[in-house]
């Protein structure tokens, strides 16, 4: 099971500001290891953020998003105390879902 994300969701100017760090190697598939073999690509392909059953952001990523990806965005309609949920799915089918409570 992949390591948990670090999610910060807070009310800023009436909107929910989300900053998240995901633990993922985001391997490009172009790097060679010490033996000269290509290290296979292993990267997050899809990121979905939901709030109250509604998707507030959907992303498709390629291998050139940095390792241990950082994402920051804002949406309206959320309130302090409510939860958001973030899911990522990678090219190997591994996935991770974490929740965070919106702080005041």
């Amino acid at each position, binding site marked *: 099971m992949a390591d948990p994300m670090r999610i910060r969701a807070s009310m800023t100017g009436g*909107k929910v500001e989300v900053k998240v760090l995901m633990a993922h190697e985001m*391997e*490009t598939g*172009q*790097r060679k290891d010490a033996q000269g073999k290509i*290290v296979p690509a292993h990267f997050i*392909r*899809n990121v*979905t953020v*939901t709030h109250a*059953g*509604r*998707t*507030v*952001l*959907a*992303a*498709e*990523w*390629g*291998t*050139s*998003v*940095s*390792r241990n*990806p*950082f*994402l*920051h*965005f*804002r*949406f*309206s*309609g959320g309130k302090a105390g409510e939860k958001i949920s973030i*899911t990522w*799915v990678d090219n190997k089918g591994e*996935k991770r879902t974490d929740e965070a409570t919106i702080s005041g």
Partner: protein
Amino acid sequence: MRLDWRFGTCMDRMRREVLKSGGGAGLFAWAVAVGLVKPSQALAQGWNKAAFETKSVADTIRALGGSGSTESKDIQITAPDIAENGAVVPISVESRLARTQAIAILIEKNPFTLSADFRIPAGTDPFVSTRVKMAETSNIYALVIADGKYFHAVKEIKVTIGGCGG
């Protein structure tokens, strides 16, 4: 299925526009974003393989359903002029274009041009901030799809050490 009251027939028109332009798997993500598909279904969502294999800005725009793109001063790219390490380049994109539906980040000199494609549903600010890998000094394009039309802004970022894993 939740339908935002603002969409109504507007949503039908948008759907037809996207279908016409052949959005491929990107359509699925958009459909989730605008509430046509429930989030639980989204776990089996698509990934626009063709778009992530393109090697030019023009090809990427085509793979994302556009036939071309207009430069716009209403798209702001916030990024450093020079990156100490190409493995981690911070980039934020903010669009002031009405009805922004998607923001994509393209890196012209990377092995594959498309880095990330964000679908912005109504109610979400047309703003994203993330970090990307740059193989070498290159132009970065922020592509915005707004009201079914394609716009972009460009910024050159110098890279002191390439960051794709060499």
